[in-house]
Structure formats: structure tokens, C-alpha cells
């Protein structure tokens, strides 16, 4: 067995027993990448030199710190390429950033580096995190390690595929409408979108600022808890980061769900969804019951409006956030006869089709005469969606749903129909609209052998309860122990 297949907590325990060094662990990850990434294409940039240097420092620190060493010391991690990494190229999957080398570091990744983690490289994503399949990356699509003809999900598809293919021990992604949870479901890994404000977004390339959040993609629930604890907390550099204290998330993994009240919203079990996905999630609900949880059908009546609300608000915010890409101080520039034309040609050449579509939609819904009909209307319906969740959490502690209506689809299947692509986020976007934490974990496989994801949504700042429930389920079923069978090929 390759060391790259280990979870964070397994690798950390064995590193402390000196069974191997951090350098050996990092080298095994790069070997795995060399063997598999020509097929998967999870990485946009590898940082092998600085990673091996960080691994050497981790081995030194381990000698000094011993048992007191942080959990992430020497752990090879991947970062979605929308985290600014000082001195490592950051593209956000877009040509407009060119070969941008960030002059500063995101808080989340600075925390990982401070804890001694080893940054392996930057993973592929849909351009500016806008997409559900990784196909809108300006560079190349990433493939699903379970079936190379299928998408890995998006937008954190590179991070999810890298974790599933053992090309890192764990990764970070971002989630604005499902971009951690949906790829986690597609690739059979654990993905956690924390509460809005739980993790600092300083140094994360902004998409939709009222929803963007940073979170882990990991091989099991314990690893997700370890990573969340490492990156969560208030940051003076992000005024939207929350001041609430960060709990000991690993302590929540008690293995018990007795008395836990689980709500299964009837609007998430609808016709049109894949029957095998529905069966797997219903079986999971019975598993929770057998552990002593109480499962009850609930209603989130405004669910069917979430996609429309989301694609108004997210595109409106994106059209504003992406106005900064003007080709003046960084990125690429195409010069024209006057300034307006310079902007227009630069942006036309630098942005891909999906990003242009969203900038256009967002500009339109914010424009004079349409603001009330679209943007303001969407914010009113968003309040109703939040209210649905507030009412549901009076009756239950966790809401369980499928993460996505289907398992991973084939490349090219939805690229010609943007609306069809948008509907693949139907079960994940409500948690972003309401600011709630959501976690996806594997809950079975369909007849084609593709992983099925189950989503657990919790109360604001109650990541501990969804981690506890997910951990119980994982212990009882061990779906996460299955591995994608990638053939090594150089």
C-alpha cells in the first residue's frame, strides 16, 4: 500500500512513530501524481520543490515538538487554485489572470503552512469557480477517478479528484452553491462547507461574497474535522469572518446518534431524481434510525425556487466582483484605441463562455429598471428560504438529503445547456443561500459503480453535530474505504 493512500489521522499517527518521514510521505504523493495525473488531470500547478522543503522542515520540527506537534505537520495537502499562495502561480482556472504570482497568502492556507502542512500543488476548477463539472476551466477538464469518461463535479473538481485518486492526503476547496459538496459526492469523498463566516476568506478569489465559504475535502469525516479546526476562526483581515470560538470538532466524533432528530425534507425526494440515489439515501436514513436517531419527514416549501434565487444573486455579486479584472495592474491586457475598448477586448479575451454568461446575467439583473424585478425579488425569496430552515430546525437537529440528484454525469453531457447544468446544484444551493453548514459523504454506489453522496445540513455554527452524525454513519458503513481503481500509467 502506498503511503499516499493514508488518511491524515493515520499518517500523522505513523509519522509520530517514525514509521516514515514527512519527506517520504510527500515523495509517495508525487509518485502517485506521476503515475495517475496524466489521466485524471487534477492539478494545474505542482509545487514540488517548496513542498519537499516544507517536508524537510516538518521532519526537523517533529524532532523538537514530538507528541506536541500539530496534527497537520508534514501532511501533503492540495489547494483549489482560487486560494492565493505566495510565490505559487494562482490562475482561478482563468486566462485573465495569466501567470499571476500572488504577493500575499490567503489566511486559510497561511494557517495550514503555520501548522506545518506541505502544499503539494494547486488543483483545477471551473473558471472563477463557476460551474458544476470542471469543464469550464480555461486549461483542461479534470476526469473522475472512478470513471475517466465522467466529470469529477465542480467547481472544486480538481481537489475532489486529487483526494479520491490519493494524489494528496486531503485538500481545500470553496463552496458558493455546492462547489465542495457536489464534487465530493461525485468522487466519493467527504466534503464540508462550513457556516458562512466560519472560515476567513482573506486571499480567496471572490465569486459571490454573500455565499462564498472555504472548506475541506477529505478521505474521511475525522480528517474533515481536523482540517476545519485548523482553518476556522476569526480573522481581522476578513470583516465577515465570525468571532465565535472554534470548538474541538474531533471531540464531537462520539459515534453516537441516539436521540438525534433528523429531518428528511420531502421536497428533496422528488420525481426526476435518480432512483438509485434516492434508495441509497433512504437506506442511510434507516441506518441512522437503527443507531437510535429519530427520523421525521419535514417540509422546506420554498426549495423549488432556490435555483432561480441563487443564479440571480450569485451572478449579480459575481458581475461586481469580477469588475476588477481590467488588465491594468495584473493579468493580461489587450490594447485598443481607447480605454473602454481596451477593457472590453481584454475581458473578452480573458474570460471564458460561462464567466461571460454570468457577468452578463448579473449585470442585467442589477441594471436600472430590472433591479426590483430580479435582484430584490430574489433577496425576498431568499428570506423565505432562510425562514423554512429556521422553522425546520425547531423540530430537528440535522437535515439529510441527497447531495445531487444524480451521480457524476459524462463529460460534455450538459455543456450545451447552461440551465440544465445549473440544475445539478439543486440540492446544495439552499445551504449557501441560508448560510448553513453542509457536509457530503459517500452513502453507496450506483449500478455503474459511481459513488452516491448524502448531504447533512446543520444549524448555523453547528458543524459539530453534522460531523458527529456523518462519523456515526461512516463507522457503520465504511463506504469511504472503497478506492477508485486507477491504472497506473505514465
Amino acid at each position, binding site marked *: 500500500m502506498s503511503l499516499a493512500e493514508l488518511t491524515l489521522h493515520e499518517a500523522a499517527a505513523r509519522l509520530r512513530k517514525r514509521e516514515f518521514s514527512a519527506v517520504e510521505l510527500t515523495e509517495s504523493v508525487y509518485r502517485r501524481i506521476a503515475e495517475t495525473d496524466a489521466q485524471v488531470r487534477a492539478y494545474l500547478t505542482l509545487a514540488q520543490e517548496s513542498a519537499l522543503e516544507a517536508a524537510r522542515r516538518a521532519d526537523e520540527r517533529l524532532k523538537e515538538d514530538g507528541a506536541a506537534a500539530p496534527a497537520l505537520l508534514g501532511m501533503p495537502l492540495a489547494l483549489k487554485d482560487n486560494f492565493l499562495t505566495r510565490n505559487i502561480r494562482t490562475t482561478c482556472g482563468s486566462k485573465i489572470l*495569466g501567470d*499571476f*504570482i500572488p*504577493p*500575499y497568502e490567503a489566511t486559510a492556507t497561511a494557517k495550514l503552512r503555520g501548522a506545518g502542512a506541505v502544499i503539494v500543488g494547486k488543483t483545477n476548477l471551473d473558471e472563477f469557480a463557476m460551474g458544476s463539472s470542471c469543464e469550464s476551466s480555461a486549461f483542461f477538464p479534470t476526469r473522475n477517478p472512478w470513471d475517466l469518461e465522467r466529470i469529477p463535479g465542480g467547481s472544486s473538481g480538481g481537489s475532489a479528484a486529487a483526494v479520491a485518486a490519493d494524489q494528496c492526503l486531503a485538500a481545500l476547496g470553496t463552496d458558493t452553491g455546492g462547489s465542495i459538496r457536489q464534487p465530493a459526492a461525485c468522487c466519493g469523498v467527504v466534503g464540508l462547507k462550513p*457556516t*458562512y*463566516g466560519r472560515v476567513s476568506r482573506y486571499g480567496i478569489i471572490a465569486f459571490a461574497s*454573500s455565499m462564498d465559504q472555504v472548506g475541506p475535502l477529505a478521505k474521511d469525516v475525522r480528517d474533515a474535522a481536523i482540517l476545519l479546526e485548523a482553518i476556522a476562526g476569526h480573522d*481581522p483581515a476578513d470583516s*465577515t469572518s*465570525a468571532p465565535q470560538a472554534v470548538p474541538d470538532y474531533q471531540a464531537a466524533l462520539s459515534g453516537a446518534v441516539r436521540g438525534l432528530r433528523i429531518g428528511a425534507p420531502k421536497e428533496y425526494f422528488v420525481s426526476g431524481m435518480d432512483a438509485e440515489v434516492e434508495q441509497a439515501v433512504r437506506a442511510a436514513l434507516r441506518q441512522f434510525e437503527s443507531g437510535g436517531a429519530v427520523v421525521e419527514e419535514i417540509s422546506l416549501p420554498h426549495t*423549488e*425556487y432556490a*435555483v*432561480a434565487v441563487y*443564479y*440571480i444573486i450569485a451572478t449579480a455579486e459575481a458581475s461586481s466582483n469580477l469588475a476588477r479584472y*481590467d*488588465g*491594468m*495592474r*495584473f*493579468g*493580461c*491586457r489587450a*490594447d485598443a484605441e*481607447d480605454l*473602454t475598448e*481596451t*477593457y*472590453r*477586448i481584454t*475581458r*473578452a479575451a480573458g474570460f471564458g463562455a460561462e464567466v*461571460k*454568461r454570468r*457577468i*452578463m*446575467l448579473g*449585470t*442585467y439583473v442589477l*441594471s436600472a429598471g430590472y433591479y426590483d424585478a*430580479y435582484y*430584490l*425579488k430574489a*433577496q*425576498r*425569496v*431568499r*428570506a*423565505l428560504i*432562510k425562514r423554512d430552515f429556521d422553522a425546520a430546525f425547531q423540530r430537528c437537529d440535522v437535515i439529510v438529503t441527497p447531495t445531487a440528484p444524480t451521480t457524476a454525469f459524462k463529460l460534455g453531457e450538459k455543456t450545451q445547456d447552461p*440551465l440544465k447544468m*445549473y440544475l445539478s446544484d439543486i440540492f446544495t444551493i439552499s445551504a449557501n443561500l*441560508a*448560510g*448553513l453548514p453542509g457536509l457530503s459523504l459517500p452513502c453507496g454506489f450506483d449500478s455503474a459503480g459511481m459513488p452516491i453522496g448524502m448531504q447533512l445540513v446543520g444549524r*448555523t*455554527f453547528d458543524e459539530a453535530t453534522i460531523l458527529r452524525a456523518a462519523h456515526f454513519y461512516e463507522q457503520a458503513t465504511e463506504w469511504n474505504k472503497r478506492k477508485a481503481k486507477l491504472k497506473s500509467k505514465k
Partner: protein
Amino acid sequence: MKISRAEVAGVALLARLRLSAEEETRLTAELDAILGYMDKLNQLDTAAVEPFSQAVEAVNAFRPDRVANRPDPETLLANAPDRDATFFKVPKIIE
């Protein structure tokens, strides 16, 4: 039609995007379909609903305006599309 080709051209100017004729045609059809789908929201009477403002209660966060993490000019200028010594070189905006 929810949106005309002329409106698409107008929005493209506001958004500082130069669209080709082919893109303009395609975006008109796509935006029309997407906006048609969004009509769904009009099924709901929201006259009495306050618009959503924030997911998590937060108040203005103040901190002293002190320079930390002072940028190094060479690192910043290294990303410039065009530069002249220690300046960003940008197009002339005054005739």
C-alpha cells in the same frame, strides 16, 4: 422574449465585454431561457417579506488602520501587464 439582442448589446457595454456577433446571438437565446426560468419567482407574493440581508448576525467590524504585511513593490509590479521602472504603465485617459 425576456431580453432583446439590442439589450444584450447594451448590457455587454455596461459589463465591459466585447461580444462577437455569434456570441451576441447565442447569449440572447441563453439569457432569454434563463430569465424565463426565473419568472418562477413571480408565483410568490413577497410584498410583505423583508429582503434577506445577512445569513449570520454581524455588526460593523472596525480595526485600527495600520499597515501590516507591507507589500514589496517589486513583487507587485512583477504581475503588471506593462510597467515603466517602478510604475504601472496604463493607457492614457485624458486627451
